[in-house]
């Protein structure tokens, strides 16, 4: 076979942006393997330009944390297809990046960076990692908390205004009623913000209303802001503790799982307008969700809406299921693994990226 005429000089004739354009369309694992082709590709694939080009056209996927210790990353093949075909991208135990072995929860995802929290009674081990570039930053803990009960909630996202990556952390110390043991009265509240690249927490003065009993996350990241699940109109005042707010597409969303018979999905139809909360979907509980409602309810929340009214939903720690708004039926989504309710399973929408943590100055980046 005669050697191709132009291809021998192919990439020398193409400007780097075109090479980036072509390579950024490949599946994630193929891209990483392409670093082996030659040094100039390896260097090109490390650039911010490549990461941005890839992010602009990549599809989203899922981050699943099981047993509070095992992380798995998936990539949707088609962003809109209700069959939600998916490709497993990678998976590894959290102890790969966390120095101390702790039960770990994922609490935020932004442009391929995952924010995780290893929980003990005395302090939190907070990490930002990129599962693809295998880089990690351990954040300093803003303050130790020893007074129980304390509720700490974290959130992670990109500021719409500055484009900077921030962790927001709210902690509230409560008094308990000595007889009923219920939480009454906040004795101390604080709010801290960590901007990636600055290497330090800063305390901000904010009036923090009572948070839900929510070790899960501070809540939804949408429109460049974080949203907490307090004082949401559709919920009965007393139920705030068992709700979380999530971002669903372009909407803020809350799920009500208190009933034994149904799950109600509320959407804030006009962003920022509290009067616009509306019941979007009412799901009759399938057998596999029964027994997971009521006062000690597990959080149910939609993860992603696909075409034709298909919604991928998670029941915290129990299962992933797919609900069809057309046929009004729910089925377990076994393609992401079978969960049995004992595995501390957590699911989060996560768009894998090649964004290197080394682009943040003042941070001690480790590889794993």
């Amino acid at each position, binding site marked *: 076979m005669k*050697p*191709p*005429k*132009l*291809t*021998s*000089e*192919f*990439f020398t*004739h*193409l*400007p780097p942006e*075109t090479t980036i*354009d*072509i*390579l950024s*369309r*490949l*599946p994630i*694992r*193929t891209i*990483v*393997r*392409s*670093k*082996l*082709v*030659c*040094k*100039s*590709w*390896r260097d090109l694939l490390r650039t911010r330009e490549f990461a941005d080009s890839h992010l602009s056209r990549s599809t989203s996927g899922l981050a699943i944390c099981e047993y509070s210790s095992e992380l798995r990353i998936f990539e949707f093949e088609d962003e809109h297809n209700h069959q939600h075909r998916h490709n497993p991208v*990678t998976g*590894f135990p959290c102890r790969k990046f966390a120095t101390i072995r702790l039960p770990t929860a994922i609490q935020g995802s932004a442009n391929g960076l995952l924010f995780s929290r290893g929980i003990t009674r005395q302090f939190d081990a907070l990490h930002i990692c990129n599962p693809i570039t295998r880089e990690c930053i351990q954040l300093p803990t803003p303050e130790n908390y020893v007074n129980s009960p304390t509720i700490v909630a974290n959130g992670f996202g990109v500021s719409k205004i500055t484009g900077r990556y921030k962790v927001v952390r709210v902690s509230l110390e409560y008094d308990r009623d000595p007889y009923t043991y219920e939480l009454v009265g906040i004795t101390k509240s604080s709010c801290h913000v960590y901007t990636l690249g600055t290497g330090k927490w800063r305390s901000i003065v904010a009036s923090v209303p009572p948070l839900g009993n929510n070790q899960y996350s501070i809540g939804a990241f949408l429109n460049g802001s974080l949203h907490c699940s307090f004082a949401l109109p559709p919920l009965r005042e007393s139920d705030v503790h068992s709700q979380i707010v999530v971002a669903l597409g372009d909407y803020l969303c809350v799920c009500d799982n208190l009933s034994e018979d149904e799950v109600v999905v509320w959407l804030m139809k006009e962003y920022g307008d509290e009067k616009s909360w509306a019941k979007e979907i009412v799901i009759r509980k399938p057998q596999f969700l029964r027994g997971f409602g009521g006062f000690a309810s597990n959080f149910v929340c939609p993860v992603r809406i696909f075409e034709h009214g298909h919604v991928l939903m998670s029941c915290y720690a129990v299962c992933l299921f797919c609900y069809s708004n057309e046929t009004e039926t729910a089925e377990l989504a076994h393609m992401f693994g079978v969960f049995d309710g004992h595995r501390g399973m957590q699911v989060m929408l996560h768009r894998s990226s090649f964004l290197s943590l080394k682009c943040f100055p003042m941070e001690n980046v480790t590889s794993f």
Partner: protein
Amino acid sequence: MAAETGTPTTLTLKSNDDELFSVAESAAILSVTIRNMVEDGCAGGVIPLDNVDGKTLASVITYMNGISAIPADEEKKKSYRDKFLSDKDFETLADMVLAANYLNMSCLMDAVSAKIAQVMEKKSVGWVRRKFGIENDYTPEEEAAVKEEHKWTFEGVETDDDN
């Protein structure tokens, strides 16, 4: 009627191996490079395209005529592009992406880039080096180190270099 609408202007393009092609100006100006020449008044006579050979230019002109005959309907344009590229081998695609880059034709560039990526998807590192004529500038030790660092991406990979 012809007098009212004017006779369609025809341009003559010359490839780097001296083949001449006639193409309607309305189709040719899909190329920003050619459009700029036309607007600058440099398009009288023959337009030399020094970076494109005759075989590739013929193919690009087929594309220009085909896509400009489709009214503003992105779905139909997309399906034309898919069909146009479906029978092209890898060498032709590589030539076309270079031509599209030189001629500054973003829609063709985008489609060809996507097609090349699709072909590369399941290929081995060796295949990519061979096809693109890229020299492996790693020492064996460096190569082993890079492979070790990213070994998770090599697990369970099946390549189909023959297709």
